């Protein structure tokens, strides 16, 4: 069964460093998302991406964040200068349609900023 894969599963980084989280969405999906979940809190929307551009972003997704689809398969989230409060589980998701269809999630990357 097709699945969304994310690497790495766990990333530890020093405050102020740049990190890149990687995702391979389901191959025939057209819409891609990043969400995050701070420990014990709800799953929060960060950004959606379609046709090589951002479709929508939340207020969390400030200038420190960027997304890219560098080739036909990968979808990346970059945090330019990490802060302690960026520590969270980051989930990539993809869907065939923007609404009215299921989004499938990867297993997540646990980002720990120290």
């Amino acid at each position: 069964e097709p699945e969304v894969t994310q690497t790495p599963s766990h990333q530890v980084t020093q405050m102020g460093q740049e990190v890149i989280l990687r995702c391979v969405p389901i191959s025939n999906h057209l819409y891609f998302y990043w969400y995050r979940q701070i420990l014990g809190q709800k799953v929060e929307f960060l950004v959606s991406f379609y046709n090589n551009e951002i479709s929508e972003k939340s207020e969390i997704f400030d200038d420190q964040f960027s997304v890219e689809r560098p080739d036909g398969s990968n979808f990346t989230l970059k945090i330019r200068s990490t802060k302690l409060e960026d520590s969270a589980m980051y989930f990539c998701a993809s869907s065939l349609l923007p609404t009215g269809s299921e989004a499938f999630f990867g297993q997540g990357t646990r980002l720990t900023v120290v």
Partner: protein
Amino acid sequence: DQQVKQNSPSLSVQEGRISILNCDYTNSMFDYFLWYKKYPAEGPTFLISISSIKDKNEDGRFTVFLNKSAKHLSLHIVPSQPGDSAVYFCAASDGSGTYKYIFGTGTRLKVLA
């Protein structure tokens, strides 16, 4: 602004009985609803969905009911099994051109053997 609310943070049910998880929403533009199951340190796993044109959708042990006038949906699991123990999130999207799913805060279900 909490557009999708799950007011019960936790629920315990005996194995074999019915589990009912509830979700309320405030945005009348929401037209598609999903339930996800999540284990610790894993991504949400899609369970079942329902479009606003329906009031019920069934898939095996899982049934989702939608009451549009009350802006309420529920997930029924019958019979509940210990493997169902997880956090359940409801999520919603609207068809008005937004490109995101809004998640509720989750309900932790514990099925007791």
